[in-house]
C-alpha cells in the first residue's frame, strides 16, 4: 500500500477514480450498444472505454492498468476487432454484396435488437478503437519509461 501511494495523484483523485471508473466503462458499453439508435457508436464508445483505462493509469500512476490489459493483448484485441469487422463485411458477399446487412435489413426505429449487423460492427469497431487507443497510450508511456531509465 505504501508503495502504491508513492505513485500517482492524491487520495482524493484516487478515491474519485475508484468510484467513477466503473461507471465510465459502463457508459462506454452503453454508447456502443446504442450506436444504431443514438449519436455515438463503436468509435465514441471505444474511446470512452480506452479513457477509463487511461484514467486508472493517470490516477494511480505507472502500470496499474497495464496489469489488467497488457500491451501485447491490446494488439491482439485490436486485430480481433478488425478481423471481426472484415468477416462481417465478407459474409455479406454471400448475400449479394460487400457490407450487405444480411441479418435484419429493415429494422424498427427505437428497438435495441433491430439493426442487423450494425450493432455487431459497432462492437467490432469499439474493440479495435478502444484497444488501439489504449495501445498507443501504453506505447508512449513505455517509451517514456525507457527514456528515464537511460538518464
Amino acid at each position, binding site marked *: 500500500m505504501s508503495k502504491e501511494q508513492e505513485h500517482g495523484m492524491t487520495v482524493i483523485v484516487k478515491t474519485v477514480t475508484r468510484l467513477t471508473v466503473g461507471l465510465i466503462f459502463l457508459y462506454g458499453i452503453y454508447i456502443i450498444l446504442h450506436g444504431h439508435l443514438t449519436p455515438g457508436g463503436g468509435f465514441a464508445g471505444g474511446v470512452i472505454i480506452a479513457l477509463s483505462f487511461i484514467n486508472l493509469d493517470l490516477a494511480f500512476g505507472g502500470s496499474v492498468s497495464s496489469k489488467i490489459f497488457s500491451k501485447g493483448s491490446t494488439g491482439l484485441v485490436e486485430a*480481433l476487432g478488425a478481423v471481426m469487422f472484415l468477416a462481417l463485411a465478407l459474409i455479406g458477399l454471400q448475400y*449479394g*454484396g460487400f457490407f450487405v446487412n444480411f441479418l435484419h435489413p429493415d429494422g424498427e426505429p427505437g428497438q435495441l435488437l433491430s439493426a442487423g449487423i450494425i450493432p455487431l460492427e459497432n462492437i467490432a469497431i469499439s474493440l479495435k478503437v478502444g484497444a488501439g487507443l489504449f495501445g498507443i497510450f501504453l506505447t508512449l508511456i513505455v517509451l517514456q519509461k525507457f527514456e528515464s531509465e537511460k538518464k
Partner: protein
Amino acid sequence: MTIESIVPLFVAIPLAGAFLITLLKRIKGIPDTLGVLASASAFALSIMFVLKMEMGQRVICNVGNWGGFQEVLGRIVGIQLVVDGFTVFMLVTVNLIAFLVAVYSMSYMTRYTEKWQFYSLFLLMLAGMNGVLITGDMFNLFVFVEIASLASYALVAFGTGKKELEASFKYAVMGGVASLLILMGVIFLYSNTGTLNMEDMTRILGSSENPVLIYLVFALFLAGFGLKAAIFPFHAWLPDAHPSAPAPISAMLSGVLIKALGVYTLVRVFYCVFGFPEKVSSIFMTLGALSMIIAVILALKQWDMKRLLAYHSISQIGYIILGFGIGSPLGILGGLLHLFNHSIFKSLLFLDAGSLEYATGTRNLKEMGGLSKRMPVTSWTTLAASMSIAGVPPFAGFWSKLIIILACIQMGLWFYAIIAVLASILTLASFMKVTRYAFLGEIRNKLRNILEVPAPMLIPMIILAIICIIGGVLLIPGVRQGFLGLAVEALSRARGV
C-alpha cells in the same frame, strides 16, 4: 461468384492477412506464409480480371448495396468501387511486384527482429494501394492514400537507426502536409458539386462553369498528389526516405507506391474527373521534363547505391508524367508502358541493392568491386535492369522511352523529345558507374568470401529480370489489346480523344 463480388477482395484479402498475422504472430512461419499467400492470391485475382475484362468494360461494385437509391435520388449514394481498364493495369503491376517482394522478404527480413510487424505493415500498405486503385469515391481515395502512407512511414522507420528515424520523420511530415492538401481539394470539390462520387463529379463539373474554384482544386491536387509522387519541386523527401527502408520496402516504395498514390491518382483525377484541360497538360509536361533532367544530374554524383536509385526514381517518374502530359493515345501508351517497366526494373534494382547489402554489408559503391564472379545472378540481373532503365534496345525500357519520344515528336514537341533523350543518356552514364564499381574490376580482400544470396531472394530477381528483357512483348498487337489497350482505351475515352 460474380465478377463484381471479386472487386472488394483486393482490399479485403491483404487487410485480413495483416490482422491475422497480428493474431497468430506467435506461431512460427505464419507471418511469412500468410504474407506470401495474401499477396499471391491478390495477384492471381488481378490476372483473372485481366483475362475477363473486355474492351471498354467497367465493373462497378456498390458497397453495402446502396446502388438501388440511384434510381430514386438521381445520384449515387454510398461508396462505389469501380474497375476499368486503367485500374486493372495498375492492379496487375502493384500485385505482381508485391508478390515477388513478399517472396524476397522471406529470407531478407531474417536480419531484422519482429518479422510479423514487417509483414503486417506490408500487407496494410498493399491493402491501401489496392484500395486507392479500385475506389470510385473521392473521400475513400483519401482514406486509402492515408492507410498506405501511414504503413509506409512506419516501414521506412523499420530499422530504428538514426538515419531511418530521421528519414521517416521527414517523410511523415511531408506526407502529412500532402494529405492535408488533398483533403482540402476534396472538400472544395464536395462543396462545389455536392457529391463525392467521381462519376457524378465529372457530370456536374462538365455541365457547370466555375473556373476560379477549379483552378484552386487543380493547384491543391497537383501539390498534394505531386508530393506523393515526388515529381520535381516536391521531391525532397524521396532520396532520404526510399534508401532508409529495408530493401524489399524500397522496392515497393519506389516501384509501386509512388505510382499508385501519386501518378495513378494524378492521372485518375485529372483525366477522369476534370477531363484533362490543356493548361494541366502543359504543367504535366513541364514538371515531367524538369524532374527528368534535374534528378538524373543529382543522381550522377551519388555513391550510395540505394540513394542513386532513389534519384533515378524521380527522373523516371518524370518520363511517366511527360507521357501522360502529352495526352495523345500514343503518349498515354508510352506513359503506361513506362510505368509498368519502371516498376519492374526499379524494384529489381532495389532488390539487387538489397542483395549486395545482404552479402557485403555495405551500400557504398566505392567499397564494392569485382562482385560479378562471386555473385553471378545478382550481377546479371543488375545488368539487365540497368540496360532496361537506360533504354538500351531491345530491353523493355527502350520501347517505352521510344514511344514517349515518338509521341513528343508526333505532337511537335521537339524540346521535350530532346530532353528525354538527354536524360536517357545521363541515366546510362550513371548506371555504367554502378556496373563498373560494383561488379567489374578487382575483388577486395575482405569481400573474397562472400556467397550468393539464398534462393528465395534469387527467384524473384530472376523473374523480374526476364520481364525486363522480354518486356517489349507487351507491344505485340494481340497482347497489347488485352492489357495495355484496355488502359489506353479507358483513359482516352475519359479525355474524349
